[in-house]
């Protein structure tokens, strides 16, 4: 859905999804964002955001079978849809364009 802008936290989540690929599920996404931004992430808020992104058609869920270990759990894996990929590309592109020539932003981004 080109032309659609993502909110900041949504963007983080989408980026984490893109990076984690097949391994993207609640706990791993949370760790990824927390680890990189240092910002504490609430599991409840993360799932609320995931649900919202899914409602927008940007991501899709796949529930895995429980892990074959004792106490193994089922996971709700997330992946980007085509629209999600497009929106992510669009958002990051816009962000890059906006950062051009901004000294503070470009220095941080380097």
């Amino acid at each position, binding site marked *: 859905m080109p032309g659609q802008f993502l909110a900041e936290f949504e963007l983080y989540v989408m980026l984490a999804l893109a990076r984690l690929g097949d391994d993207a*599920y*609640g*706990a791993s996404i*949370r*760790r990824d964002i927390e680890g990189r931004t240092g910002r*504490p992430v*609430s*599991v*409840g*808020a993360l*799932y*609320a955001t995931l*649900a919202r992104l899914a409602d927008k058609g940007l991501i899709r869920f796949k529930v895995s079978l429980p892990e074959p270990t004792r106490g193994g*759990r*089922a*996971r*709700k894996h997330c992946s980007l849809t085509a629209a999600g990929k497009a929106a992510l590309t669009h958002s990051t592109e816009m962000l890059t364009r906006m950062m051009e020539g901004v000294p503070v932003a470009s220095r941080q981004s380097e």
Partner: protein
Amino acid sequence: MSQPARSPSPPRLARALAALVTPSDDRPFVMADLEEEFSRLRQDSGRWAAWSWYWAQAFRAVGPGLRRRFARDRHPVGAPDSKRPRWRSSVGADLTYAARRLRQAPTLVLVTVTSLGLGIGATTTVFSIADGVLFKVSDAIVDPDGVLSIYTVPKADPVFGPTSYPDFATLQRDVTSLATVAALRLGAVQFGDGELARPVMVESVTADFFKVLGARPTLGRLFVAAEMQPGQAEHLTVVSYDFWRRELGGDVDVLGREIRLDGKLFTIIGVGPEGLKGRLAEMRIAAWVPVGLPGGFYHATDEELRDRADREYGVMARATAGFSVEQIEAELSLLSERLHREHGQEWENTPGEPLVFRVVAANPGMLPPEFTMVLTAAAGLVLAAAGLILLIACSNVAGLLLAQAHERRQEIAVRAALGADRWRLVKMLLVESSILALAGCGLGILIARVAITSIGSVALPIGVPLEFDFDLNLRVLLFALTVSAVACLMFGLLPALAGSRSHLVPALKMGRRSPGGGGSLRLRRWLVVGQVTACLVLLVGAGLVLRSTTTLLDSDLGFARDGIAVVSKDLSFGQYSESDAMVIFEDIAARIRSHPDVTSVALATSVERVFDDLLLGEILPEGYETPDGRPLLVRMNAVGPEYLSMLQIGIVGGRPLSDVDQRGSERVALVNEEFAAHYWPDEPALGQTVRLVGKQGLGTAVRGLNDRLTVVGVVRDPSGSNPDAGGRELGAPAVVAVNSKMWVPLAQHPSTRVVIHAQARNTAASIVPVLRTEAVTSEVPLIAAQPLETLIEFPLAIPRAIGSAMRWGGVFALVLAFLGIYGIVSFTVTERSREMAIRKAIGARSDQVVGRVMRHGLSLALWGITLGLIIAVPMAVLLRSELEAVNPWDPIAVGGGVGVILAAALLASGLPARRLSALDPMTVLRDE
């Protein structure tokens, strides 16, 4: 760092919280994620870090979780919302919003919920009592609509009376359209013995009683016909479920045990079905016992069971399959005619007027229809009064919400400007009202619960324990909910409509200070006027009722009552002759007299004024023509020689009764002044003759006497009694001389039933235990031992209760009206402070300004008072026919009501108006 995990799982409470707030489709994943991170943290950073992390996560999940669950699309109220049906999408948001708003206005919530709770509580209480008495049918009865009640009724006069035992036997034997017939009789008996004995209610029933009801026992068995033969019935009992649980501890080994009722031992053969109560209005009863016990039980002697004229039994029946109620009626009317032919006088109400059987279908509660009608009407009246309170409460809440709506104009205008249509705004405001209504409903049910339990057992001075189990059943709860919903609409809709009327531009531009809302203010004024009206009606009504009761108490009754205690003693069901009974009574009297605290004892057959119809004489005053030559029924009291002096009953002519009036001496009587004036207007009453042709007592009648009584004295009538009404005769069938009374010597008219009067040296209460121990043995007395004063006040208990209920309602209404006036005046003060400041600035004095505003509040009160008087006076005139000594213009009641309201109105408008006097024009105008 890693420690052996003593408890590897996260904090349980936090986990529950997180699970609670997370939407169900994500719950397993969220919980698993939390768990995973928790155990990782425990390994890496220790237990405390993991624990606090988990708690923080749980708390932070609350916000997003709730938002997702209740307001999936969080459109601000007013924002267009196309995806979902508008109605569904926003209720969650409205709820959240309303809850948040109400939290900010705790006073508003407190006042509205309390008002509504009281109103709903009052209506619910009245409804559940009416429901319990009139409509409730025990689940233990199979097909309750098929239960018929049969009454014996005078042909001309539809009074649904009881039936005699022989008539019941005939119904059972001869009527083919009735498959099963049962008779029952309610009675009070003494349960247990000695000090622990206490009265309980039982029903004496015939063999098919339980069959008619279709009831099954909880334990053991029910009666069978073989053990219930009249005169040879066995001493067996089926105890009620309730009694079994309360008194016998719900013990399953209860079968075969014996309980003592009125001194006789009964073997328990069964426990009745759960929920089956007495047939009369679901009264709580202890046990069922057979009719026709050898030697009699509770007045049911063999003789009485053979007496066709002794009508004491309720009859219930089931129709034979295929017969309609009309067919049964037809068969019963033929039977009535046959019984009249066969039994003549015994089957007549008054000479020449035969009786008939009447059937009332679907009446397992057995309340006679005329009773049901009266009770329904009474319940309706009380319900209307309770409804009035609810109405006042609603109007007050409406007033508060209107004020709120006025204050919220700006907010509403913003919403409207954002695109909210009117319906959307009304809905938002109504959601708030329904939260208030629901809270009020909860409080109301709570109040009703408390009230119902305390009302359930009615303490009567007649020694009979009447206990009802009113409960909050589903019907009652539904009623409360409906009432609340109606209330919610009543108090919520008007403000919502008024509030949602958007005057966009002025409201947005001028904010709080803007004028407008004139319509809603006018509405509020009318609501307050309505409250004052209702308040005055209730206060005046309460004043009149309570005044009438005190007037009655203070009035001259014609006899003294201080220090006198009474108890009744009844030997009419035993095998005693009247003279035997008199010996026993004299013996009891002598024992009581010998007690140091007692100064004298007197016997009488009636209690003046309260139970003065226990004995009625059928008389023909000589020289007076009665209508059709039929005898007059007159209240008669057969008294011992000490009686008149003990009660200080004054004699205006002739002599009192004394020891000279013995069995064999001249037959004499005293009459009251009205009696004398009415029957012998032109001659002195002394020396006249009254012919006594019959006597009637409780359920007994003696006819065919020819007792010539000479009038030897005239008794003073209480002052204030109306001589014009004297001796009035009520018409056929029984001609009753209303205000005529007669006293005769007990020695000449012995009785098996007396009321023992005893004079105490100190207080009447001090000798009540003496009377109880000496007179009450195994049976329950008709009149329990008590001070005469208490007994006299008893008939006033109901008007007093009504009066004080009205007074409390009035006080409640007064508080509401006070708040209403206060609210309006203080609102006006705020709104008009600018105007008043200008007035002051151009030279108006403080008192002029204050007076202007106060006049406003007082005018509301005056309107309400005028309307209230218009309603209250006709009401008082109506009340006059119900209550003695009510003067509709009673200055204390009417003046008091008006005065109290005026004082309240002065205070309510004075308090806020005083703020104006301190008003500094410069400050106000600068603020603008």
